[in-house]
């Protein structure tokens, strides 16, 4: 063993299949530099360096070290990352591959995990912090809770979030296959081989960098080769097939309905803090595979379960199998003198490996009276002392509590839950335990399949699969099947059956030859009795991450928490980042003992995604930042940018909001304020001519002999008389009578209409038309096609609109031949166009519609000719002011899903006598819609002309009343009108249509109260003459 890595076995030991001793790597832990090798995990490298204390515990701040070797590790949690932006909180050292320059810190402990001051709080405060203590205190005085809470929050949590943005990217790959095999141990590899041989698409994933699972640690011989060699041969065969996708470093984290599985592939996390570029190109740090598969083969193996005994959290306590893993894969023997406590034969392998690696096995305490399996015989033959009917009842610690110093072993009476004989203290630095295995059933539970307890294997296995998870098999240790020969045979049979269910013949596969060891049966032991009662014994931890002890569970049950869910929630057992992979079954067993029940009576364990934590970025993939949500552009978008438009988000569209110009009166090139720009744009439209990019309006082409009938059913108003060449405004309601959309629809030909919708409503309205057509009126002959994007719409409006357009078109624009609410076809700037004389501003308007690819030609031609007419581009804000002056509503602004056409004063737009009971008609006669005091749309004129009422301001009739005030409505739209030179608003007011001339009040947060007069909703040109000039 080298001085720099005191626990690393020598290269001639033959151990260390995963490490490359030719590639030493340096890394930093808690500010101190260490060396490890390529292939190490951070945990193996720390153990190799003899680092015992890796973190401090969450509640009692006790020193903690490595317990396990994989995803189940509860203790060895670190903060990773050298730079701020690359910080990753809560990384399990057992799953983090070592890379050169890796920088890690303990997540807890002040000033650090070695010399922690908070430990004092845990040591001396601990007795006053029983389970659930926080529910019982910190209540008085009530005002102090936030202060107590501040300290509680500081003490809680593990790592910290970075406070800079992630420099890396993440992505998704959608995959489809016939067979997804999760886990590459013996059962997984065998399953993949069988499935791949049939030619179907197979994905094999494993969370480890190397495929093989338990075969990598196994001393078994398969087909005459070492198990790990057999595994690598199998992987080579799979890699050569083009129907197989191999995904190492890839964890199956979520199993969703109908065989959808999320796999998280860590592509670069073993390479550095941030993802390196490849040939100068970015690659994703990690990738989420969204897999849809015909069959899932769950080969996720089993986790070894530690025993629960006093002092079981002191560094140097490990699960037995982890010793074999560290020795065989990483050539690390994390100690000198081992005491093993077991309930089964398997764990003897760890003791034999320890001894083979040059360590001393002080004793094996076997809870069974007469263990007699072959491994037991081998241990005896190796001269190891075996103490039967016994267990480690307590691990003792050195003075600082940083390392195991000894093990107290005693004869135990399992049935009676007591220490039944003498207790002997053995000096050692390592205690390893095994209470059997827990099949990794997590994924099976994600879609609601309940695990069932099996007494014969002392573990939960996935329950019988229901028909809805057709295409789901569980193989190997995950199914509670452990002997390698038997599980290979079973895996082959299950996969063949699965393929046959799809009519696929699987090639016959030879089952490898394996020697099968004679094995003694295991005994059920979870918490080891102590010579003191549980409540008085030194702490016996069940959930190491959340500092949940056996005493806590006992107290919880005494306090009436009898459901296992209550026990878990009251104690926080299983709520850690390991989700109780090591502790849950022990906790259930302890609860069961306290309640005098069996484990299955006490409850099953249900797991939720994720199996292991996945960073948010990986789940988000590329749907972030500039790709978070589509930005929709019109054909004139670049022009708007070039002309300095400020944009408004309307749905996904970017619409010009206003176009601030450089102020003429300011030499510094300062830009107009929004108010100044809008006033200028408004004046331009009212006095000269403006142009709006209205391309975002929804447009639906409607063709068919029943198109007119359909419109009559879907709109509130009548369409039977609309002549070809004319257009009409329409209102749409839902069948509850509330307005949902509006727009102008044009009759293009007898059987042909063009409907326009609001910008935000376009997609929903098309679906609305389709649902009525497809489900209610399939007999109507009509087709709907979206042409929103096909047509660009350029709205020219203002008194000079005709003069400008006339320069560019061959259409006769004369007011008597091209009337208001009509359309014509012709060329505009040489481009074929449909021109509609409709107006949303009250001014003379022409909406020019051209195929979008030609829109810029027309737009630029307008400006080429427009200067002399004062052509001004205007945005949505000006559009809002101008339309509000005219009392034109905006659905969604002046309505909120509770307004009927009548509430809006739009009786003129309701076809009361139409023959077909159109959508929304019936609701207009319901008792609530007939109420006289419904909120109705009105205009408000502030008494102070300079005041612009706040949109959303609430309206009251009596400003003197006490709070809560009786509110009668609110302001829906409010602007300053440069034309009228005063503020004005649209509002909804209870019974408003009968309140004309009344005074109302709008109390503001600053104590001011605005006064306004209720007026009609049309403020400008009430006779509508200007649009007809």
């Amino acid at each position: 063993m080298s001085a720099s890595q005191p626990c690393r076995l020598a290269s001639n030991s033959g151990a260390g299949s995963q490490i490359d001793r030719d590639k030493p790597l340096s890394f930093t832990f808690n500010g101190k530099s260490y060396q490890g090798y390529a292939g190490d995990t951070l945990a193996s490298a720390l153990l190799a360096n003899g680092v015992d204390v890796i973190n401090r515990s969450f509640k009692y701040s006790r020193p903690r070290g490595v317990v396990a070797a994989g995803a189940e590790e509860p203790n060895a949690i670190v903060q990773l990352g050298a730079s701020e932006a690359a910080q990753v909180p809560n990384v399990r050292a057992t799953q983090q591959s070592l890379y050169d320059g890796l920088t890690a810190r303990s997540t807890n402990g002040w000033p650090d995990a070695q010399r922690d001051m908070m430990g004092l709080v845990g040591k001396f405060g601990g007795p006053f912090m029983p389970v659930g203590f926080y529910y019982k205190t910190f209540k008085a005085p009530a005002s102090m809770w936030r202060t107590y809470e501040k300290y509680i929050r500081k003490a809680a949590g593990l790592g910290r979030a970075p406070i800079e943005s992630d420099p890396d990217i993440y992505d998704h790959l959608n995959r489809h296959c016939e067979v997804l095999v999760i886990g590459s141990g013996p059962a997984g590899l065998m399953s993949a081989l069988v499935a791949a041989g049939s030619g179907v698409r197979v994905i094999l994933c494993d969370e480890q960098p190397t495929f093989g699972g338990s075969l990598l640690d196994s001393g078994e011989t398969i087909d005459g080769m070492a198990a790990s060699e057999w595994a690598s041969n199998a992987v080579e065969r799979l890699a050569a097939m083009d129907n197989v996708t191999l995904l190492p470093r890839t964890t199956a984290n979520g199993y969703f309905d109908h065989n959808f599985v999320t796999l998280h592939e860590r592509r670069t996390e073993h390479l550095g803090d941030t993802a390196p570029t490849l040939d100068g190109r970015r690659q994703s740090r990690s990738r989420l595979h969204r897999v849809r598969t015909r069959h899932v083969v769950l080969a996720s193996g089993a986790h070894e379960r530690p025993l629960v005994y006093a002092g079981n959290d002191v560094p140097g306590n490990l699960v037995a199998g982890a010793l074999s893993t560290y020795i065989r894969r990483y050539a690390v023997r994390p100690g000198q003198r081992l005491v093993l406590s077991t309930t089964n034969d398997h764990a003897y392998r760890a003791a034999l490996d320890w001894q083979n690696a040059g360590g001393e096995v002080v004793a094996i305490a076997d809870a069974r009276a007469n263990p007699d399996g072959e491994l037991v015989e081998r241990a005896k033959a190796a001269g190891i002392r075996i103490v039967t009917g016994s267990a480690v009842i307590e691990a003792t610690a050195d003075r600082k509590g940083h390392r195991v110093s000894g093990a107290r072993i005693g004869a135990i009476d399992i049935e009676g839950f007591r220490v039944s004989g003498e207790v002997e203290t053995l000096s050692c630095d390592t205690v390893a335990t095994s209470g059997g295995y827990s099949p990794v059933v997590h994924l099976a539970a994600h879609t609601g399949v309940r695990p069932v307890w099996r007494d014969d294997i002392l573990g939960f296995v996935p329950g019988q699969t229901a028909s809805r998870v057709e295409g789901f098999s569980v193989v190997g240790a995950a199914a509670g099947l452990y002997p390698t020969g038997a599980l290979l045979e079973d895996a082959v049979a299950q996969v063949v059956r699965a393929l046959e269910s799809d009519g696929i013949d699987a090639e016959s596969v030879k089952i490898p030859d394996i020697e099968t060891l004679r094995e003694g049966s295991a005994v059920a032991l979870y918490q080891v009795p102590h010579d003191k009662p549980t409540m008085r014994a030194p702490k016996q931890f069940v959930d190491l991450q959340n500092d949940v002890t056996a005493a806590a569970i006992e107290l919880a049950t005494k306090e009436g928490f009898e459901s296992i869910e209550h026990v878990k929630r009251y104690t926080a057992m299983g709520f850690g980042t390991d989700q109780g992979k090591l502790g849950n079954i022990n906790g259930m067993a302890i609860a069961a003992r306290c309640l005098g029940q069996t484990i299955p009576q006490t409850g099953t364990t249900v797991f939720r995604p994720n199996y292991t934590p996945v960073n948010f970025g990986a789940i988000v993939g590329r749907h972030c930042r500039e790709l978070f949500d589509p930005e929709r552009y019109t054909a004139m978008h670049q022009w708007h940018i070039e002309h300095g438009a400020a944009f408004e988000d309307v749905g996904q569209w970017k619409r010009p909001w206003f176009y601030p110009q450089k102020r003429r009166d300011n030499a510094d090139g300062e830009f107009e304020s929004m108010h100044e720009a809008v006033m200028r744009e408004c004046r331009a439209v009212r006095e000269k001519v403006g142009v709006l990019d209205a391309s975002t309006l929804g447009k639906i082409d409607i063709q068919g002999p029943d198109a007119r009938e359909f419109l009559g059913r879907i709109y509130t108003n009548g369409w039977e008389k609309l002549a070809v060449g004319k257009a009409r405004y329409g209102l749409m309601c839902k069948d509850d009578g509330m307005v949902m959309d509006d727009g102008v629809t044009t009759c293009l030909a007898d059987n042909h209409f063009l409907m326009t919708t609001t910008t935000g409503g376009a997609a929903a309205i098309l679906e609305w038309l389709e649902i009525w057509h497809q489900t209610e009126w399939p007999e109507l002959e009509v087709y709907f096609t979206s042409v929103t994007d096909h047509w660009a719409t350029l709205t020219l409006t203002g008194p000079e609109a005709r003069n400008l357009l006339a320069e560019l078109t061959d259409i006769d624009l004369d007011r008597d031949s091209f009337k208001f609410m009509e359309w014509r076809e012709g060329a505009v700037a040489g481009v074929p166009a449909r021109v509609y004389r409709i107006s949303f501003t009250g001014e003379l308007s022409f909406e020019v519609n051209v195929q979008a690819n030609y829109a810029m030609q027309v737009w630029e031609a307008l400006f080429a000719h427009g200067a002399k007419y004062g052509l001004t581009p205007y945005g949505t804000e000006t559009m809002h002011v101008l339309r509000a002056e005219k009392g034109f509503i905006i659905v969604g602004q002046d309505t909120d899903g509770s307004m009927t056409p009548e509430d809006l004063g739009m009786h003129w737009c309701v076809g009361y006598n139409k023959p077909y009971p159109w959508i929304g008609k019936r609701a207009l006669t319901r008792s609530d819609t007939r109420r006289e005091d419904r909120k109705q749309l009105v205009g408000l004129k502030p008494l102070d002309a300079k005041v612009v009422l706040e949109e959303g301001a609430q309206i009251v009739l009596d400003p003197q009343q006490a709070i809560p005030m009786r509110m009668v409505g609110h302001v829906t739209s409010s602007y300053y009108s440069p034309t009228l030179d005063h503020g004005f608003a649209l509002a909804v007011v209870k019974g408003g249509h009968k309140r004309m001339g009344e005074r109302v009040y709008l109390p503001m947060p600053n104590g001011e109260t605005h006064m306004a007069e209720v007026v009609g909703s049309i403020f400008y040109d009430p006779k509508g003459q200007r649009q007809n000039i």
Partner: protein
Amino acid sequence: MARVAQFDPHPVQGAATQSPLHHRAASKPSGDSRVTLVELAFLDHLVLRGEPQGLAASVQAVLGLELPVEPQRLVIGETGSLQWLSPDEWLLIVAAGEGFRLQRELREALGDSHFSIVDVSGGQTLLELGGERAIDVLMKSTVYDVDPRAFPIGKGVTSVFAKATAVIRRVGEERWELVVRRSFADYCLRWLLDAGEEYGIDYRPAKVAATTPRAAVADTETVS
């Protein structure tokens, strides 16, 4: 009086035309691109709707294309391509300027039956994606199974594309076409360039000339 208003959107004289991606420059040339992307702009796109029995013969006669009645089928011929979109909806893509003539001929051939033909040329554009890693780019972008085993040449589907939608069609061994809506085109392009970055993506803007002549059609049928 006409039952349906037909409209030829193309200028007689030819006019400046802009694709939805006109503002996007070509990617920097690189020797090792494994994905190529080019916009095939200014083609004429028509949506044809009706009952297949009624349409098939006329479609065959006018377009020389078999009307695909099998779901997800794409038929390509000299006139252009015709793709099944739904049991009563097809997408016809033909050369620039051809759409109006074909629409007229189809309407004549179909006579009084109930159908609809809608020009959507300005509303969408076509991108051709190619190269050995084109499939990976697609897997990053759509939930549809684009594995060649499940997606033979001559198949086309409408599916999710990033957070937009696209018509996705396979036209060659490593050649795919995407039909995207005009207003989403810039987003889709940005997405594709991002998704293709790690494979080296070579993007070329539309190759077509900046003016499109009007097809030789005598007069337009309009309402008066």
